[in-house]
């Protein structure tokens, strides 16, 4: 899916757990997520800690969108 968004001319960052899967799927900007059932959260943490982690990941994703890349890059 990520390739079609890129093909439409919109910069896209792929937040996913297993980078090899997204590498084969062809994403250019990749931000590793925490775990498959909860990519941007960790139920073992308190709500505040969890939101802080989520913010970190989203901010890294926004950084990735603002970084020039020439090919598949993991941030």
């Amino acid at each position: 899916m990520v390739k079609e968004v890129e093909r439409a001319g919109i910069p896209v960052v792929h937040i996913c757990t297993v980078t090899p899967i997204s590498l084969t799927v062809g994403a250019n900007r990749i931000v590793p997520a925490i775990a498959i059932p909860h990519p941007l959260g960790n139920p073992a943490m308190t709500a505040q800690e969890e939101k802080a982690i989520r913010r970190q990941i989203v901010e890294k994703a926004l950084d990735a969108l603002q970084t020039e890349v020439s090919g598949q890059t993991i941030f």
Partner: protein
Amino acid sequence: MKGLIITNNPIVSEKFGNEYRVEYVDQSFEDLLARVRDFVHKGYVILTHPLSGSIKPKETPYKSVLLSEVPLLTGVEGESLKLIENSIIKAKAFEDKTNNLSESVLNDFRLIDLSLLESAL
């Protein structure tokens, strides 16, 4: 414990119940693979091929898979996830032929599934 066995084969859980940690699920072939995937999502590594044996998925209802004893601390292991996802896709391509199998046929399928797992233990 030397590893985690996920199986829907009663004679596997009987035989290895104490030697290995056995997660017995009374579910179909495909649901069993989904269960294995849940464990892979928790970081467990797959040790035996989920499509072991040339008897086709859903021709035999039984499947046993050996996983690592403990999950990786670093999260999901890429190869295991690729392996289980591909196995699930492959299993989907087959018709379910496990209804109205006689007890003797089911017994033979249980035996073969046990032997396939044993060849790895």
